[in-house]
């Protein structure tokens, strides 16, 4: 696919002034097990525009998962604001699909039934559910595994199934909490290709992706924009725009350069945080 073929906006356009996701002065504190207040996110602001792919990158403890959970509506913020299409986020909803690191498939349902349940929950009629579920299974290369139980799949296939379940519901936003973090290198690469493809095809509504990761290469491969978070308490230290066409390969010159730059930046951050 050529650069010109990408119709997704790289910059907020006047008629799309409202960002898809907006985070303003976000602060999140939580009580640690020993009872002290720990600041996980310390005043973070950023926007994600319609159709954009953004990666939140940071060392562990930088609060990136907290930010994602707040955007998902699963956790509450301490101060600041988060909004979707300009409206404050007050809880979870099917407009924001979440890819969890550990694929959260329901173990009592077959793979296809997992997707059908998700469709049922957003009000898709009985007749349409089966076809739509199978379509998405096919799309992620799992058509032969529709009636298999999740535990019979490999870790990579479970992640695919989770991706299919998320996309079948045609969400506006896909939030990924290190969704490929626990996979082996081959499975991760396949999934990264898969995600690039479905994002670029944006079947249904244009999808906005926000992935949390500590994997620099993954971020450079997937993201239009990388937001780098500091060591705890997390705040934004860098924003890197990557103007390379998708699908990208890890050995693309631009991708490789971004990886080197960001890696250095992160190493300095980890050093600053000291031994943990």
């Amino acid at each position, binding site marked *: 696919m050529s650069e010109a073929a990408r119709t997704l906006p790289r910059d907020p356009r006047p008629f799309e002034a409202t960002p898809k996701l907006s985070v303003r002065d976000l602060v999140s504190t939580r009580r640690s097990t020993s009872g002290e207040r720990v600041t996980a996110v310390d005043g973070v602001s950023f926007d994600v525009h319609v159709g954009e792919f953004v990666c939140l990158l940071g060392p562990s403890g930088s609060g990136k998962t907290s930010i994602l959970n707040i955007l998902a*509506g699963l956790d509450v913020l301490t101060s600041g604001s988060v909004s979707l299409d300009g409206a404050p986020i007050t809880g979870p909803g*099917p407009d924001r699909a979440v890819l*969890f690191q*550990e694929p959260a498939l329901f173990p*009592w349902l077959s793979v296809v039934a997992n997707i059908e349940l998700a469709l049922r929950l*957003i009000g898709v009629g009985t007749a349409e559910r089966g076809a739509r579920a199978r379509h998405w299974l096919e799309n992620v290369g799992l058509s032969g595994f529709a009636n298999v139980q*999740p535990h019979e799949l490999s870790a990579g296939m479970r992640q695919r199934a989770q991706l299919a379940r998320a996309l079948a519901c045609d969400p506006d936003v896909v939030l990924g909490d290190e969704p490929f973090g626990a996979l082996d290198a081959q499975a991760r690469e396949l999934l990264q290709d898969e995600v690039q493809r479905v994002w670029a095809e944006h079947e249904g509504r244009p999808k906005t992706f926000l992935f949390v990761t500590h994997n620099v290469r993954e971020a450079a491969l997937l993201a239009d924009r990388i937001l780098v978070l500091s060591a705890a308490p997390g705040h934004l230290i860098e924003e890197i725009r990557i103007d390379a066409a998708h699908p990208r390969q890890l050995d693309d010159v631009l991708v490789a350069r971004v990886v080197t730059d960001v890696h250095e930046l992160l190493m300095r951050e980890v050093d600053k945080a000291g031994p943990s």
Partner: protein
Amino acid sequence: MRKAVRELGPPLVGIAGLILVWWIAAALTSSPALPTPATVWSAFLRGMRDGTIPEAAFKTLIRLLFSFAMAIALGTLIGVGLALNEFARRSIRPLIVALQITPFIAWLPLAVVWFGATERAVVFVTIVGAFPSMTLATMSAMRQVPPLLRRAGRTLGAESWELYRFVIFPAALPGYVGGLQQAWGFAWKALMAAELIVVAAGRVGLGQLLARSQDDVPTLLAALGVIVVIGVLVDYLIFNRLDRRIRRRRGLLIEG
């Protein structure tokens, strides 16, 4: 066939060994207090022919079914309530735990005072014996649902009641079935104990048959055997199978 041999072989060997030891002991003592397996078997056949054993077993099973159903209903209802509400949990759970720890048979004298030496007293003790464990199992099964599944359900758009219907109840099923199995054991024990003591109650159940057969040891042992077999069969054929099926489906069963 092979699978049946592998599965049933070892327990059958165990039973055969028990009968052998019993037979030798009976032959050595030759006392009326320990009849041989053959004598007990003919007492069993006699009891089957004249209808005492089937009638007693039927009566017992009716009582059991009713009490067990009540215990399940009560335990499920209270258990779900305790899982949902923290105040209820903190105020009522200790009482249920106390009930669970108290030997159920200790309630029998009170039950007799309240209901007389009747059917109702027997049923009361059986319910009190079984429902606390059902309650606690239901509560823990719901509370142990992995937070990840709840969160996944919520992000998929499941709200309040839907979250329970499609996520929390199905996720809690293995623990709930474990609770059923345990409650079945308690109900069976409580019912036998109550029947043994409340001899006057209505028609004769297996427990009462035991109590009446103290001067007829072969019949006593035959009735005891029937009690053992019913308990084991229900546990194995219904609850154990159900449990294995559910666990296998979810990949929770370690085979072998």
